[in-house]
């Protein structure tokens, strides 16, 4: 057992730092640190910078053009990228669909779509959830009926993250109505420009627009856009869920958030003292710090094990629960630290040069409310506990 990073790993960290120093545009980092909305071109720009360095497809195997990183490299990269204020790499094309295509796609599909994902020609969004099918995804009702060389798709998807920027959506659709619901689902690639598709924005709790509803009315989708076999969609969805690649514990975000809150608590004044001198606040922060240090190790231990055994286990569920709880606790501490100054909305629109909260914290409350989502999406924390208890108790 040796918890020190190796020489090589340390050198890699240096390399990542230098790269971020040189290449991450300051105006983008400022937005990320302050929690302001990124534009489509901000995100595309960062993807292109990473791609030029060969680090965009961080989860892809070398055969497909990935950098061949293991869990430790990924951890180091994520931690440094978050610390520097790099935007999150959008997972839908790179970390989700790409892996589905590598495992279940035809050679033609791989050759066509993978380069487009890397180059940013396609922006993919994820069309799983429906109004009636959230946790119970298998109850989805959007139908795809095969006729000749095409499917006709009807139904509604919802919660489609950043769909407003996307040109394509990968969907789970119902292709068979009898039998077990899981057995009648297929995985379909849909061009969002197809006639019969309408996208409507959903405004979130803090006022932002990051999710959408997508309506399908007699949308014609070429049969060659089916991935895997017909009715194999559930297997594909489960494959994605259990092969965790997207740093589900969100360590990088939490490390960055922790540093930010600590700095804030050292500047904010309460009762003539710094907030950090208030033992009640300091105790809140110290408690999360210990949890976060533990989670860093839990994360690396579990991911290394999973990689060694080649067998994904239950680690994703544990990491998801702890990771989201810690991140939410840090968002909670940031808004608490501001006291009344957390309230003005939207903070950056305030008149003149009058500062109520430090600019990088002006959206602390908005971020806290927005991040209530992280324990709901991607399989809610309750569903993760169900997965864990089912496997642990075997009752």
């Amino acid at each position: 057992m040796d918890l020190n990073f190796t020489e090589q790993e340390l050198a890699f960290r240096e390399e990542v730092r230098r790269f971020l120093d040189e290449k991450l545009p300051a105006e983008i980092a400022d937005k990320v640190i302050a929690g302001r909305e990124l534009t489509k071109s901000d995100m595309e720009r960062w993807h292109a910078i990473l791609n030029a360095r060969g680090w965009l497809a961080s989860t892809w195997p070398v055969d497909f053009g990935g950098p061949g990183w293991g869990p430790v490299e990924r951890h180091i990269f994520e931690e440094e990228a978050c610390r520097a204020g790099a935007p999150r790499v959008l997972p839908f094309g790179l970390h989700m669909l790409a892996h589905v295509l590598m495992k279940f796609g035809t050679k033609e599909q791989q050759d066509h779509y993978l380069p487009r994902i890397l180059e940013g020609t396609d922006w993919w969004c994820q069309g799983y959830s429906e109004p009636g099918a959230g946790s119970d995804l298998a109850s989805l009702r959007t139908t795809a009926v095969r006729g000749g060389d095409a499917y006709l798709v009807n139904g509604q998807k919802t919660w489609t993250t950043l769909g407003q920027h996307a040109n394509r959506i990968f969907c789970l659709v119902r292709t068979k109505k009898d039998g077990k619901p899981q057995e009648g689902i297929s995985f379909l690639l849909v061009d969002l420009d197809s006639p019969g598709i309408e996208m409507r924005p959903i405004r979130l709790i803090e006022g932002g627009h990051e999710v959408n509803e997508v309506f399908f009315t007699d949308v014609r989708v070429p049969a060659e856009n089916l991935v895997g076999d017909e009715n194999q969609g559930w297997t594909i969805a489960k494959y994605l869920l259990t092969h965790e690649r997207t740093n589900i514990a969100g360590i990088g975000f939490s490390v960055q958030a922790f540093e930010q809150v600590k700095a804030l608590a050292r500047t904010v004044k309460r009762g003539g003292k710094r907030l950090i001198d208030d033992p009640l606040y300091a105790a809140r922060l110290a408690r999360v710090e210990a949890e976060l240090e533990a989670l860093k190790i839990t994360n690396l231990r579990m991911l290394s094990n999973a990689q060694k055994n080649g067998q994904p286990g239950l680690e994703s569920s544990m990491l998801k629960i702890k990771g989201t709880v810690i991140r939410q606790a840090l968002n909670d501490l940031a808004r608490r630290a501001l006291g009344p100054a957390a309230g003005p909305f939207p903070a950056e629109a305030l008149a003149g040069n009058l500062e109520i909260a430090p600019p990088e914290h002006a959206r602390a409350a908005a971020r806290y409310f927005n991040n209530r989502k992280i324990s709901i999406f991607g399989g809610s924390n309750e569903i993760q506990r169900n997965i864990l208890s089912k496997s642990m108790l075997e009752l």
Partner: protein
Amino acid sequence: MDFETSDDRRMLADTLARFLAEACPPEKRATLAYAAPFHDHEAWSGLAGLGVLMAFIPEAEGGLGGRGFDVMTVFEQIGRALSPEPVLPALMAARLLLAARGDVDGLMSGEVRLAVAIGEPDAPWDLSDIATRAERNADRWTLTGRKSVVYGGNDADRLLVAARTGEGLSLFDVSPENAGVIGYGMIDGGGAAEVILDATPATLLIENAEDALNDALDHGRLALCAEALGAMDHVQALTLDYLKTRQQFGRPIGKNQALQHRMVDLMTEIEQARSITILAASRMAEGDRARSVAMAKHLVGRVATLVAEEAIQMHGGIAMTWEHPVSHYAKRLVMIDHQLGDTDFHLSRLMEDLRA
């Protein structure tokens, strides 16, 4: 002991509930609470017309109440309806004007909207660190300093401002036209302002104002606890209903014991919050007012945040949307803990009390 609400207060609560349900339905609130002046002048006059502001003034002064339970009655309804009207500043101003033996007629009729400016950037909740200075030149006073997040300050006719003289804390009356008032909306709806005072002319209302300020702050805290209770009751009802109706895996999500236990825990926590608020309401004219209010605001601060977070979580994605009422109730419930001292601030007050 008698835990029954008096007929008068019950009537006031019912009238207020009916009025607010019509004046401030969720769809309407979702826009009006977020656009200047961040409340509704018609609803404000309507509230005053119902005698809501008179409920803060004792009968001897021409009002209809003035007791802790009157405050609680009004604010539970404000919270249930999530009303963005600046009733809290009116209550605090009423306490200050009563202490100053000032005229409260304009306040009671709703014609004069008052805001109370106490907190500052480095002294959000604590009177001892107020830095705004008052200076006297012959018999004219001027104030210099900055008051931060003054609720209702964006749309007030008069500002009651706490400032430090050579002697101690005093209370002044300031006309907003003479100050730099920068209004804005809040993330949970409603409006506030930064108030910049730069040798701003002011009228002295109370020379030794510390007791009066603490009285006003404690009444404000009680009001916030009651507001949270009203909002929590409503959120609890919405969540309970959702657990029974939302179907996943072929059955209502409330069939899952994981959610059942959390739902009943919320109920118990809310009842505890209700009890401590009732206790505080009963102590408003007693020597242990401050301690009771600190307990209430400490406990309610913790529970309100818990209720907000759990309500969102148990609703799933739908409560993350602007369109769904739970999102707005949750924001208010969390942000109540940022007003007039958070749960830790009041815990510290209790700790001091234990040590004394």
